[in-house]
């Protein structure tokens, strides 16, 4: 079977681990348990063209205390970049992570998630910011690990795109 490594990227506590748990095990917990290091989960997704085994690397969120080890990215076919819709500052980290990722992997596909979309009353992403992202080609997908909104879609979209990549002659 075709297998693809993908990485979860984003600031700490944006919901990377929760998204993986929701996608792989269909569970969600409110309790925050910060990830240390790396945890790899596997899940097979069925796409129109083929089945793909995703190796999902959940990497400890970047923050002031910890710098992300870019070595973990090597061999990745794509990334899921996560921003917390209730914390505008996490978008800044996202910009930096994309730069890191591009340095390490070159031009690989990534999907851009704005997570915690269930917390609408705490939502802090304004239209201007959204337009900016859209103009940059970072069409965001609003997700919620809590309700499951768009989680499946996001992973599938990335899986599809990593497949297309490989078809492209290089």
């Amino acid at each position, binding site marked *: 079977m075709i297998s693809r490594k993908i990485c979860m990227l984003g600031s700490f506590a944006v919901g990377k681990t929760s998204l993986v748990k929701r996608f792989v095990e269909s569970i969600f917990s409110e309790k*925050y348990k910060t990830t240390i290091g790396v945890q790899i989960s596997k899940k097979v997704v069925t796409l129109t063209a083929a*089945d793909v085994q995703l190796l999902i690397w959940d990497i400890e969120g970047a923050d002031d205390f910890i710098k992300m080890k870019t070595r*973990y990215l090597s061999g990745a076919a794509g990334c899921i970049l996560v921003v917390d819709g209730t914390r505008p500052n996490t978008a800044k980290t996202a910009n930096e992570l994309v730069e890191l990722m591009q340095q390490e992997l070159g031009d690989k596909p990534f999907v851009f998630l704005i997570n915690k979309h269930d917390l609408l009353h705490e939502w802090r992403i304004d239209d201007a910011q959204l337009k900016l992202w859209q103009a940059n080609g970072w069409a965001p997908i609003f997700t919620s690990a809590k309700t499951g909104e768009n989680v499946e879609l996001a992973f599938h979209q990335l899986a599809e795109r990593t497949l297309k990549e490989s078809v492209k002659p290089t």
Partner: protein
Amino acid sequence: MNGSQEILNALGFQGFVHLGEGNFELINQSTDWFETIVTQAIHEASGLDDSSAQSTNNQGAEIPSSSQRNVRIANGKTFDDNDLALNKPFKLAVLFPFIENFLIDANRIWLSNTETVVDSGVWTEQGADGNEYQLVLKAFSVARQSMLLIENISDQFPEKQGVYQRMRELALINEKLIVELNRRQRSLQKEILKTIEQKASMRELEKEYQHHAAAVMICQSDGHVEVANNALVNIYRTESNGENTYQSLLEHWVNEAEQIYPEIKTNIEAGRYWEGNFQTTSFDGTKKVIQLSISPVWGEDLKINHYVCIAYDLSDFKVEDEDSDESIEFDFTTKLPNRRYFWHKFEQRKASADSRQVGFALVLIDLDNFKQINDEFGHMSADKVLVTIGGRISSSVKHDDFVAHLGGDEYAILLDYHANELDTSLITERLLRVINEPLMIEDSLININCSIGITTYRGEEISNNELFKQADLALHYAKQQGKNCAQRYHKKLEKRPESLKKIQHLRAAMIQRQFELYYQPQVPCDGSDNYRAEALLRWNHPTKGLLYPGEFLELLESSGLIVSLGYWIIHQACRQIKILQDEGLSIVVAVNISAKQLHHASFYKELKKAIKKANIAPSSLELEITEHCFVGEEQSVIKLLQKIRELGVLVAIDDFGSGYSSLSYLKKLPVDVLKIDRSFITELPGDTESKAIIQSILQLAEALDLKVVAEGVETEQQFRFLLDYHCHYIQGYIFSPAVKFNQLAGLLKRLKVTQTRK
């Protein structure tokens, strides 16, 4: 090897020798934890076999049983419990992608044959027993053997995890609080300012904000209170709600805040937005901490007529600790010491400077036109710029120097010096240089300029606040000088309001639309109908009559007003091109663009917008830039011009020949048109050198397929010479001075070159 095996087991290690090509051999008995993670990994892998089997099945092929426990791991070999025995090659990386990834680093170490140990960082594996195991890989060589250890750190892990957990939880709370508060405060400020702009009466405002959660006070510039809402009463706890109660509140705040923000007064008097948090005493004596913001409201007379003040009571989450010296705080965006910390340090350094027998300098840095970056790219990109600049400042000073981010786009540096005098130019030049280095925001390469004010102290009698004011004054002088420069404080600076007034006049002239575009035709030498004109700025001054750029351009440039006026010029020119086009006249209009405008972050976007809004062909607009625009920024300007030309807009080099570039340099520049510097034309036909230069410009232009415009052509002889040497367009009094827009169409139709070349 037996003894060491036991040690490995006891230490929680699973050791391997790398046999090459990803084959590993165990060197100690397999541990329980290792077995359970291997079992789990195999289990997951066989699960995968299931699905692959199914997909093969769909295609009708033979499939092996899906429930088998053995799994192919390599070379057709199946994996079973037996494989965990010693002395059997074993493909570890196939089961554990994390190990596979680590082999890149490990191989490097194994090949290098050094004593270095590389470490993978922590990773977590699921065990078949339902537990999670935290593991670390270590690779090294011993006696030319390639060793790999898996260390089980699950026992120490909870403690480590706990530390990070607490740290991050705290960081989260802090982050949320600050973001939320600032957001509310700023948006409320904006909202109120807007309401005032819409000419709401103070009564209406009072009604609107009476029950708002934030404390709102609006007062006149002399402190006379016009609006004070309930939340304000709650903070200051007073029975009487009479107007006079709050009469002195602004002053009260300024006095209180001054303790930690000595610049507050200067700031507010200068009409700048201010925010900060400090301890305040309410009328019943209770101490509270508030987050206060103050915005000035400017009247049409360009004077401050009101202040809008918004306060949040932070007492619930912030307890000011009187005893401790915890003023050590950092700016949230740049992670540099914040204003409060800065003042703390400032006082300390100043107080100790005498005893330490050193002098010290206070450097204030303010980024030029930062607001436009904010407007253009949004606050996230702007924050990124602040972080980058903060980093550049920090790395260009000595270790002992103290760098702070005062908020907004202001930074400060405190530095000691030992000599009698400090050569401040060294440091300011370095700062100007590093800050100005190109910076990438989104897709654009921009250059940030800054202004610097600096003052030194060596034991004089002077208050902290006075000293700060000196640097601030120097900074504002630098801004007036056209920004992007540094100024050291000097007594003479104390009196210089003249140019400030002039800047205010210019600003008022812009608001009152006293500027107008005139047009001077550029007549084609081939007698064709390719109409062209240069747009020229004129100021209809209310008392002095019509003013030419010579009288105000310098100040426009130095005050930075050229940027916004420049955008107006582009928009206006586009609108007028459209009018001519609608009359059936096809024309190219050239607009002068200064270096400042061109380097402005949103220039390209604004240009595009103007063209689109006016709905004109981009090729009917030409930008005239001078060679100065390239100085120091060649690559980024070339890139920008390429983009502009891709739009279809034409680019002309103005005053060509007078600048620093050689003619051959021209090949590199993305331009369409050259305008010969008028000084060469004036000297025609007598001056042989001018003649030679013009001839070579014309030859070069022909070789590069550029068009040439000669400006300042006044006499018949000049005209003849240019015609003979194949100049393309003639601009000058010989045909017409610049005229008002409504006369342009008629003028163009009348003008035609009928003479032919010799």
